[in-house]
């Protein structure tokens, strides 16, 4: 397991990042998440630029944080190699 994880983590992180961005598509079906919330906010305040940019920054932050976390995991699992 540990040896397999070392090789799998970079690709797994890719999948994680892609799925993270694909969650925005859920808003189409009506579940209230970042995208849906900003859609509602943009509609009621007539300020789409601010709210969608805010959503973009949130997503960027999420990918940034998960990248940092995954980097730490990578270092942890590649000890001794």
């Amino acid at each position, binding site marked *: 397991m540990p040896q397999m994880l070392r090789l799998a983590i970079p690709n797994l992180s890719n999948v994680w990042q892609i799925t993270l*961005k694909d*969650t*925005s598509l859920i*808003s189409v079906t009506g579940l209230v998440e970042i*995208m849906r919330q900003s859609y509602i906010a943009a509609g009621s305040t007539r300020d789409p*630029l601010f709210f*969608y940019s805010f959503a*973009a920054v949130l*997503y*960027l932050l999420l990918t940034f944080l998960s990248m940092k976390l995954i980097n730490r995991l990578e270092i942890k699992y590649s000890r001794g190699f």
Partner: protein
Amino acid sequence: MDINLMITSFPKLLSATVVTLKLLSLSLFFGLFIGLLFAILRLNKNKIINKFAYGYSYVFRGTPLLVQIFIIYFGLGQIEYFRSTFLWVVFKEPYWCAIIAFALNTGAYTSEILRSAFQTIKPGFIEAGKSLGISSKIIFYKIQIPIAIRQSLPAYGNEIILMMKGTSLASTVTLMDLTGVAKYIISTTFKPIEVFIVAGSIYLFMTFIIHNVIKYLEKKYSF
């Protein structure tokens, strides 16, 4: 299952596929230029230019395509000043907004693909060119770019397929592409399964063709 509906909706969906293919080809065309430009900027020694290109690809790869389309289509129209400029002629059309968003998005991914391809070129090729007295400009155009294209073909084929599926998001900005027309038929017939099966198989068929074309090109340009 309503087989009749599947048969009658097929030609409608097929004509909508033309819109999808137009979106795909135009955004890939512009995206390739953007990608090449930013890949070259990424390899630049200048720190500021380098950081700028990295920031571009980071922002566009770090945010969902849906957000990018919404910002460009809904967001930019909000700026009063922007609406008075000549650019507004382009940005008020959902068609061009979608193409711009797709081109910028695929450009970011393409720049990463091409950059990694440039970096994996063995220095021997460039040194061989230099020792023959070829100028660095011609080395770049005649040696580095062809090798980079060959190296990046598999990854770029992936990107084309991802982009093809990404064009389905154009339906969120009122564009009548394959998904848009499928949604429209569903809203009048209330039979989502049949229509989406047909739409899905058209997407699958396009993926199949793109996959095989890329495979053929890979074989043709392999060395």
